[in-house]
């Protein structure tokens, strides 16, 4: 029997069904590992043992009574700290929300728990999900479990690292410009950014509302499919959640890839891509061809403008969303002589450097005289990028790219130049702007042993297709390339 910490969701279920372990014992096993590893890796910001053991006892009682178990019964999961959890500290990796305990659960959390999942705690992330390395957390960076002197990626670095370090079976992350997929790639775990509107954002603390999404990071693609079937679907509390029916994603995995057309955008393999990443992704594409996919060269001519459009739109929305942190309703207050001065001091000291930088940029692009030149222009270019995807999906069933142009880098290596950090988001922000689903699936390692991710994009609400391809890739040894 393999160690419980490495189990997939079906393996957890099999062990519980066979009574080889109880849910309580399983939770205890994970908390023991977390105690051992967390001081070094800094993955968890808060643990919720009371709630976890109470849920485990419920599952164990159901097993003892011979009741039918729900889909995720006894599965330990970790939740990114920007997702609200009732009574469990939720800081968004920021000082400005230190000590905040939400009075309600996010819909995704509620659905996980209703399906029997066990919430272990909250994972570290870049402050308000703004960053690509986890170095923007007010509580210190997460270390990459694969190479602890390297970053885990961001902003869902804690969630990716929790799965990679076997400190949870699955995790929820959030993705605005790549924040699920890129850390998935850096830590070597499958990571799915669903279509915009596929998973309710109710209870997700907003960064950029037209881009934010919740999705799973898991040990296998099948596990991602299982979690998706639980968390996806219309929620009356999020008016942007779509009324599109949710398929049984796991059931769709077994279909053959034969005859599927995969588009390879020439525009994604230009300058800036690490040669080893390129080699692995090329090998990944060759593997997909061996599995029956037909490779088609495509153009996505507006790719080069995606970063600029993204950083206008995301920071504009952020500057508005983050106006609510004013030291009145939650978090610490830094008192000033007047109310305005209280706002200014609270925000000035409560937010970290990257968040302030983005608020200043976002306020600038929205301010009188610049709105048309920046914000409106950015939204028009967003139309063109969405059109690139729409046109591509007329010719192909999926688009295959690298997830990130580079593998995980060393802590501190890239903090001096924010623009350089932004530019590395190129392959993920395009799909974010277009609203389409994308998965990062492990595609081997560089000679230094750092994971590489292959990204598969599908058309809006085509998660089933994306998961199907990723699953076949994984089963065919995609990670041993």
């Amino acid at each position: 029997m393999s160690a419980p910490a490495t189990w997939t969701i079906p393996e957890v279920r099999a062990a519980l069904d066979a009574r080889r372990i109880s849910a309580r014992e399983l939770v205890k096993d994970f908390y023991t590992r977390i105690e051992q590893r967390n001081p070094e890796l800094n993955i968890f910001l808060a643990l919720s043992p009371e709630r976890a053991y109470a849920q485990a006892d419920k599952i164990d009682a159901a097993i003892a009574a011979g009741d039918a178990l729900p889909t995720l019964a006894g599965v330990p999961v970790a939740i990114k700290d920007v997702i609200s959890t009732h009574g469990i500290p939720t800081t968004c990796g920021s000082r400005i929300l230190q000590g905040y305990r939400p009075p309600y659960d996010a819909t995704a959390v509620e659905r996980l728990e209703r399906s029997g999942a066990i919430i272990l705690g909250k994972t570290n992330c870049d402050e308000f999900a703004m960053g690509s390395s986890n170095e923007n957390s007010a509580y210190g960076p997460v270390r990459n479990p694969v190479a602890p002197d390297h970053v885990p990626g961001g902003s869902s670095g804690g969630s990716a690292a929790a799965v990679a370090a076997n400190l949870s079976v699955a995790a929820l992350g959030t993705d605005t410009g790549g924040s699920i997929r890129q850390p998935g790639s850096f830590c070597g775990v499958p990571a799915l950014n669903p279509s915009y509107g596929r998973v309710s954002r109710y209870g997700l603390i907003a960064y950029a509302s037209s881009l934010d999404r919740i999705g799973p990071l898991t040990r296998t693609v099948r596990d991602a499919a299982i979690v998706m079937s639980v968390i996806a679907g219309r929620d009356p509390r999020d008016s942007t959640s779509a009324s599109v029916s949710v398929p049984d994603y796991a059931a769709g995995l077994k279909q053959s890839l034969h005859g599927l057309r995969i588009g390879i955008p020439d525009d994604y393999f230009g300058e800036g891509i690490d040669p080893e990443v390129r080699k692995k992704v090329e090998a990944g594409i060759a593997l997909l061809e061996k599995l029956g996919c037909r490779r088609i060269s495509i153009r996505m001519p507006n790719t080069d403008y995606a970063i600029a459009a993204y950083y206008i739109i995301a920071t504009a929305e952020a500057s508005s969303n983050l106006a609510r942190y004013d030291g009145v309703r939650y978090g610490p207050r830094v008192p000033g002589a007047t109310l305005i001065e209280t706002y200014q001091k609270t925000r000035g000291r409560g937010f970290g450097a990257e968040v302030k930088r983005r608020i200043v940029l976002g306020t600038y692009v929205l301010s009188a005289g610049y709105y048309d030149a920046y914000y409106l222009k950015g939204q028009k270019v967003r139309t063109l990028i969405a059109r690139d995807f729409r046109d591509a999906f007329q010719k192909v069933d999926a688009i295959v790219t690298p997830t990130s142009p580079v593998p995980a880098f060393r802590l501190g290596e890239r903090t001096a130049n924010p623009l350089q950090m932004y530019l590395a988001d190129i392959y993920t922000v395009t799909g974010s702007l277009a609203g389409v689903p994308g998965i990062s699936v492990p595609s081997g390692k560089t000679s230094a042993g750092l994971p590489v991710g292959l990204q598969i994009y599908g058309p809006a609400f085509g998660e089933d297709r994306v998961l199907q391809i990723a699953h076949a890739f994984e089963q065919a040894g995609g990670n041993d390339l």
Partner: protein
Amino acid sequence: MKISKEDVLKVAALANLELSDAEVDSYRGHLDDILTYIDKLNEVDTSNVEPLAQVVAAAEDDSALREDVVVRADVITEVLRGAPDPEAPYFRVPRVIEK
């Protein structure tokens, strides 16, 4: 130079953000880099392009609409517990109106 120190201060005031002198200097440089980079959007002809504010396809039915019914939330006590200076059922703030 696209952005001056005064621009940064003006925007920080709009955003109710206190910045140190060092922060103003460093952000000015970063924003200058970023705005210069963003200028590449001027290469794109968008004269006949509609802006895209969000990707949700306009619902073909009324599924995004719901009945406007009152639901009890009962969270006041819990919400106030997290506030820095609560006085039930209010949040207390420094004086806004002079006597």
